[in-house]
């Protein structure tokens, strides 16, 4: 069955709402509008306005309300329309959701899922193109997910809701229209939310990517294969906690790595990946780990500039070639 990333997310929401009365979805325009990226389209009609709840434009307020509702015994799914607006709610996530278990000495916990769209590539300019996955992945107490495949879009919500701690789930805007085959049986998408996944095997170099970067990494790998370079592609999937063993395992085999990250280079998640490889595989590395990230500019609107600012397959290929001394 062909299904889009968007539909996969929607079916996962539908399952969650159907199977657990404690689950509800809330956010700006998730109901009558159908979701700003149409993910929740049709769910209002199926589950009613109490459980598919439109909120006013009050990111701090309704994210905090999600934290409170989780404390009160519900299993809220809060949609923050995009990561850009999540800055307004950051305090409730960092000082509330992430900290309450610890601050209360383990008495409380916050079983909350926050979904948000992330990333650039749609010419939405500086205030609508952020990639702050790395910031959330910095915060103890949170679990951070980045489904990059249709199966993960379909499968990650269930374990996220089962997780007793707050989970941030990033949906990349460039993936919503992605289509692919997915079986009808839950085994086709059942997954854990602790492991990275090898998406392509190879021995010449490890390309590490996540979210919107995965497809570009795979594209680069295909190009490289044409030149006889077999790249192993690892999809991080879970950005916190990082599955370091899988990364190290691959790099110990390939001895070279490139990290792809749509965040601005300095201080992006890619830096942490490099640091982990330094710490765990320094003596296995034949060359410094490369990074292909966004240029350090607020995202420009104009198409050529935006394309130049983002990590593209060509840049990944070039980075791998440099690593292999093939320039």
């Amino acid at each position, binding site marked *: 069955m062909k299904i889009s990333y968007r539909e996969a997310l929607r079916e996962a929401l539908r399952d969650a709402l159907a199977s657990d009365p404690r689950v509800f979805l809330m956010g700006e325009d998730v109901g009558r*509008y159908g979701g700003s990226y149409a993910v929740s389209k049709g769910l209002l009609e199926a589950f009613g306005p109490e459980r598919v709840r*439109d909120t006013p434009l009050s990111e701090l307020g309704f994210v905090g309300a999600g934290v409170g509702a989780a404390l009160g015994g519900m299993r809220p799914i809060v949609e923050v329309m995009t990561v850009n607006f999540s800055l307004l709610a950051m305090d409730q996530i960092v000082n509330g959701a992430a900290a309450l278990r610890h601050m209360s000495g383990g008495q409380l916990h916050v079983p909350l899922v926050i979904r948000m769209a992330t990333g650039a590539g749609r*010419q939405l*300019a*500086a205030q609508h193109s952020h990639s702050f996955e790395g910031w959330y992945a910095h915060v103890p107490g949170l679990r951070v997910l980045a489904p990059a495949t249709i199966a993960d879009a379909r499968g990650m919500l269930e374990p996220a809701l089962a997780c007793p701690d707050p989970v941030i789930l990033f949906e990349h805007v460039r993936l919503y229209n992605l289509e692919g085959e997915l079986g009808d049986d839950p085994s086709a998408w059942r997954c854990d939310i602790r492991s990275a996944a090898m998406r392509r095997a190879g021995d010449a170099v490890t390309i590490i990517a996540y979210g919107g970067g995965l497809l570009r990494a795979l594209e680069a790998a295909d190009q490289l294969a044409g030149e006889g370079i077999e790249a192993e592609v690892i999809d991080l999937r879970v950005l916190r906690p990082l599955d370091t063993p899988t990364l190290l395992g691959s790099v110990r085999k390939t001895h070279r790595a490139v990290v792809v990250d749509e965040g601005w280079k300095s201080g992006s998640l890619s830096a942490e990946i490099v640091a982990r490889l330094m710490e765990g595989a320094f003596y296995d590395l034949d060359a410094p780990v490369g990074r292909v990230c966004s240029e350090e500019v607020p995202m420009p609107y104009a198409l050529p500039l935006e394309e130049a600012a983002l990590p593209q397959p060509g840049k990944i290929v070039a980075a791998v070639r440099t690593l292999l001394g093939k320039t």
Partner: protein
Amino acid sequence: MSLGPVPYDKTSSQALLADMLRIRRLEEAAAEWYGAGKIRGYLHLYIGEEAVAAGAMPCFHEGDDVVATYREHGHALMRGVPMNAIMAEMFGKALGCSRGRGGSMHLFDAGRRFFGGNAIVGGGLPLAVGLALAAQLQHEARVVACFFGEGAVAEGAFHESMNLAALWKLPVLFCCENNLYAMGTALARSESQTDLCVKAESYQVPALRADGMDVVSVRETTQQALARMRAGGGPAFVEYRTYRFRAHSMFDPELYRDRKEVEAWKERGPIHTFSARLKAEGKLTEEEFLALDARAMAEVAAAVAFADAAPFEPVSELGRDVVAQEEP
């Protein structure tokens, strides 16, 4: 409070009408070129709401400051930003008013004190407060026009900004464009108190209401609010009751409102009601109307040609204007 019609002369009346037509035609073209892929990203049309920008903007002086939202083509144009520069910006070109960096949501013109173009709902309000604080500290008489939608009223930024402006008696005119919807969310599903003037008054900010479909009501009300402000009265708030005829953005399937409701509002469309009135008052003939409209369309066509021909900025310039060139 009576806002009855004021006798404008023929010239000034026709100028108001011409402005609304310029906005309308500009945006229709933008929609068309969006469809053709020349304009991308988000495009939020103001069609139906033209009376607000056209009526309010001329009340502000050259030295005043203006802050707007992502639905700001009309405001930029009324502020005097050349249509060429606006269209080129939407086309992402180097001759755009933000050099192609901003696009539709981020029109700027520092020379005209047009401070953008903000895609964060409510994000412009604190800026407006700060601009007004600067004016106050500099002992200058300028005021700040701050446009925003009624959806922004639910944001914490609204609350903090209204309070700061009122507390410090800053010259901000909060211009709330109440088009009844924030994307798909109707006002009553967003505010426990739907009378926005009552909300404004709870900060001790005087509030007026204008018929946002009537350019004269907009103009009179804005002037009235400004008169009080310019006399040193601190901030004021105007609610412009209006309606957007088009979808929220080019992606909106408009599931949340009834076509009938849209049609009913269209009957109150600011352009045809005002031109009908001018005709009835003998200030406009059909020929004059068509001439104004033709002039607007010609201006738009020229802007499109300009924008299309303009170059993109070279990719080598990508890193420009992130910080100042000189090292501090």
